[in-house]
C-alpha cells in the first residue's frame, strides 16, 4: 500500500474566480498582501507495489479524470513526505494525530 498525491491547479492563464474570491475575503478579514489560487489535492491509496508502471497509471488517471487539462495543470508524486496531512488510511486508530501541530486541527 502506497500513497500518491495528485495536485491540480487552474492554469495561470485561466480565470480563478474562487481564488479571487478567497483573496478578497482574506483582505476583508485583515490578512493583507495574500493572493490566492485555489486548486484540488487528491490523496490516492494505491494497492500493491508503487513501481514506475503503477505511478504511470496514476498519472494516466490524473490526466483522464482528475484534471481537466483544458483549464488545469497537474502534478503527480509519490508521497514520501515526513508530515503527511493524514497519518494513515481511513479508519486508522491514529485518527487523533491528524494534522501537524495540534493547534491547527482544532478537533
Amino acid at each position: 500500500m502506497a500513497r500518491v498525491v495528485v495536485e491540480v491547479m487552474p492554469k495561470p492563464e485561466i480565470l480563478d474566480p474562487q481564488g479571487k474570491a478567497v483573496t478578497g475575503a482574506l483582505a476583508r478579514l485583515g490578512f493583507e498582501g495574500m493572493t490566492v489560487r485555489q486548486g484540488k489535492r487528491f490523496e490516492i491509496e494505491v494497492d500493491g507495489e508503487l513501481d514506475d508502471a503503477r505511478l504511470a497509471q496514476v498519472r494516466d488517471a490524473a490526466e483522464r479524470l482528475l484534471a481537466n487539462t483544458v483549464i488545469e495543470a497537474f502534478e503527480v508524486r509519490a508521497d514520501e513526505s515526513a508530515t503527511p496531512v493524514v497519518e494513515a488510511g481511513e479508519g486508522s486508530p491514529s485518527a487523533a494525530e491528524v494534522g501537524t501541530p495540534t493547534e491547527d486541527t482544532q478537533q
Partner: protein
Amino acid sequence: MADTVVNAQSSPEVEQPWAELGLKEGEYAQIREILDRRPTSCELAMYSVMWSEHCSYKSSKVHLRKFAVLGDQTPTGRLLAGIGENAGVIDVGDGWAVTFKIESHNHPSYVEPHQGAATGVGGIVRDILAMGARPIGVMDPLRFGPLDAPDTARVLPGVVSGVGSYGNCLGLPNVGGEVVFDPSYLGNPLVNALCVGKLRHEDLHLAHATGAGNAVILYGAATGGDGIGGASILASETFDDTKPSKRPSVQVGDPFMEKLLIECTLELFAAGVVNGIQDFGAAGISCATSELAAAGDGGMHVELDRVPLRDSSLSPEEILMSESQERMMAVVEPDHVERFLEICRKWDVQATVVGEVTGTGRLVIDWHGETVVDVDPRTVAHEGPVYERPYARPQWQDGVQARDVTALARPGTDEELGRTVLALAGSPNLCDKSWVTDQYDRYVRGNSVLAQPEDAGVLRIDEDSQLGVALATDCNARFTLLDPRAGAKLALAEAYRNVSVTGAQPVAVSDCLNFGSPEDPDVMWQFVEAVEGLVEGCAELGTPVTGGNVSLYNQTGDTPILPTPTVAVLGVLDDVTRRVPMGFCGEGESVWLLGT
C-alpha cells in the same frame, strides 16, 4: 471484546456510564428492571439514544396527545396515516395522496451550518420517501441571530448553502420558507425543513416488520462514526481504550447518494418487493430496528457484524448509534430478495441482508456470533419514560404584556415618517429575501406553479387533471412570547391564510415546536400553551395535525429562544391553473379589501 448478554448476566456489579449518556438515575434503574439484569453496553447505547428527549418525546408526549381530539378527518377526506407514522398522509382525491412533515435540525446547524442544514433536508426527505411517496418539494423556515452579529456571518451563509446544495442536488424545488432574525437565536439558530411528497393510495408503505422469515435489508451508505459522541464513551472508556476517543459529532451529507436512494427506493416500491420500510434518522440502527420490530407482530434478529462499515474500527455500540446519513432499512420476503438486490445494483446502492423477522417478540442483535442485545423492542421504541414536567405562567409574563405600543415614539413629521417607512422596508426581517431564495432551485421537476416570492408554494401533482397542493409555513415568535396560546393560533392563522389566498382549500397541519428547556417551568408553560392554542385553532378550522417535530433545549445558557411553534399548512387545489398569484395582475381590475 463485546459486552454480551451472558456477560451482563454474570456481572451485575459493573459500573456503567449512564449519566454520561444522558440517562437519569431513575431511567437507568428502569432499564435494569425491564431487563431484569444490567444492560449490555450495546443495550445501554440503544436505550440511551432512544430514550433521549429527541427520540422519545418524553417531556412533550403527554401534551402532544391532545392533538388526538382533532381526529383524522380533513375537509377533503380521511387521513390515510396520521401522527405516529413517519409522516401524515392525506387523501387529496383522484386516487392521489400527499404526505408532508416539518422537522428541525437546529443544534447540528449551529455546530456546522452547511452540513447541519444539508443533513436536515436529507433527513426529512427520507421520512417522506419512507411513506412510499415521491418527494416533490421542500421548504425551509429559518431563524438566525441579528444580521449584523459576527456569528450570523458564519451561520447564515452556511445554512443557506447547505439547504440549497442538498435540495438542489436532489432535484427538489424549494417553494418557500422564512428568514427571521432575533437576538435570542444567536447561539441557537433554528433550521426547520419541510418536505412534501405525492403517492397513489395503493403505494402507501408503513414502518413495520412482519412475517417471520422475512429478510431485513440495510441499504444505502456504509456506516461510519458520524454523530456518535456518546457511544464513544462506551466504546473507548468502558471496554476498550485503544479505540479512538474522537468521533465526529458532525455528519456530512452526500446528496448524490440520497438521490440514488430516492430513485432506487421508488423503483423497489414499484416492483412490489418491499413489505415494511424505515428511514434512518437520529439513533441510526438502534432506531430503525427497534421501531420496525416494535410496530410489527414478531421480533427481529440482526447480525450486526454484517453492516457495511466505512470505518472498520467501529465498536458494536458505535454502529448501533451511528447517525451516518443516506441509509434505509427494508423488510423483504425471501422470494423478493434477489430482485431487491438487483434493483439496488442498478442504482449502485449497496444493500446487505443483515437479519430477519422472527416470531419471538424479541429484538436480538448478535456481534460475531455472540448476543449483545436481547430486548423487547417496544420497551426501547415506545415505552420509554414519560414526564409530566411542572409548568407555570412565568412571573415576567405580565410585565411583557404590559409593554404597549402607545409608549413607543411616533414619527412626528412627514420626513420622519418617510424615514421610518424606509427603515422598516430595509430591516432584515422585512427586506427582500432573494439573496437566500436565489440560491434555491424553484423550477426543477417543472411543477412549481407558485414559489418565491409568493405567499405560499403551489405544486402541481397531476399534469392531466391539474390537481395540486399549496403549502405555507409561518410563525411570529414575538407574538408567541407575548401570549403563547394566541401566538400559536396566529401562526396557524397566518399559514392558513397564505394557503387560502392562492385559491387552495387548507386541509392539514404539520408543526415544528421549537422551545427552550422543558426543565424550566416557564418554558414548559409556553410549550403547553402553544400546543393547546394549536389544538383550539385546528379544531376551529377543522384541520387535523398530521405530524410534526418537537425541538427542546434551544437555549444559550439559561436564556431560551423565543418560543417558536412553526406551523405548516397544506391546502389542495383541484385545478392549479386557477391559482391566484400575489400582486396586481391586469390593468383595470378592481381592488377589494376584505376583513376588518
